[in-house]
């Protein structure tokens, strides 16, 4: 039995995502953490490609890896890196945090498993390798976005406007009168 190339790629991307996420959360140096998060975002973009979400993969790379992560890296310059790397990484309550994360992951695995076990077989028309994933995805997403989801789309732009104004107001230096 031959394993399809898409599955090999998926399992590589999944393993790399989990490894880079773990590294990102546990590194002492915040800049190293950021670079591991960058690797995580790129691997997640690969997973989006494999699930046939090409537009989402492009947005993931352009907005997450390109804009948001660079923004975070700028803000790391606010830190005093030597003292940051010298202190403890985790608060004293970290076992509780680890237990909460593990419990959530376990509950989610448990919840997904019975619901998806019968449906895990791919539909007959789509089984096979990655080449059978339907193309033309970007046109479909664009049509949906500007017809059925045009109101949520406009609301998203309002949310972004509110966030810009809010960020400026919060971060502004208070000048006396």
């Amino acid at each position, binding site marked *: 039995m031959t394993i399809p190339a898409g599955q090999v790629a998926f399992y590589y991307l999944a393993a790399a995502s989990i490894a880079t996420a773990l590294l990102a959360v546990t590194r002492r140096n915040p800049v190293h953490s950021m670079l591991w998060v960058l690797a995580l975002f790129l691997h997640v973009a690969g997973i989006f490609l494999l699930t046939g979400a090409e537009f989402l993969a492009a947005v993931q790379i352009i907005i997450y890896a390109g804009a948001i992560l660079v923004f975070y890296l700028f803000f790391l310059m606010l830190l005093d890196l030597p003292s940051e790397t010298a202190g403890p990484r985790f608060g004293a309550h970290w076992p509780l*945090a680890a237990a909460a994360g593990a419990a959530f992951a376990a509950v989610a695995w448990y919840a997904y498993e019975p619901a998806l076990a019968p449906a895990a077989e791919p539909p007959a028309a789509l089984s096979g390798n990655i080449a059978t994933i339907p193309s033309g995805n970007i046109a479909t997403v664009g049509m949906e976005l500007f017809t059925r989801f045009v109101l949520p789309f406009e609301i998203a732009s309002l949310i972004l406007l509110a966030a810009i104004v809010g960020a400026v107001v919060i971060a502004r230096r208070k000048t006396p009168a």
Partner: protein
Amino acid sequence: MVPVGACLALSATLFGIGLVGFLGRRNIILMLVSVEIMLNAVNVSLAAFSQHLQEPRGQIMALFVIAVAAAEVAVGLGLVIALSRNRPGVNVDDLTALKW
């Protein structure tokens, strides 16, 4: 064809890792980055469902999640600037002014 169950398991694991980072780290910027990891985990499961159901709505929801994440970054990092102006350093342990 990516098995949807494996995608959802990956999503759950990534979300758990992000939760550990958010609850456990002391650095407020890395806490915000952990929130980004959790949002990404949600996007993975939305994309998996979108493929499984052959339906683009999941991807559109994921796009809205990304828009909200960008808004969250702007406001969150604005708060970090305001905080570091009043009190240098970004460790949440030191922010005890509101603690009872």
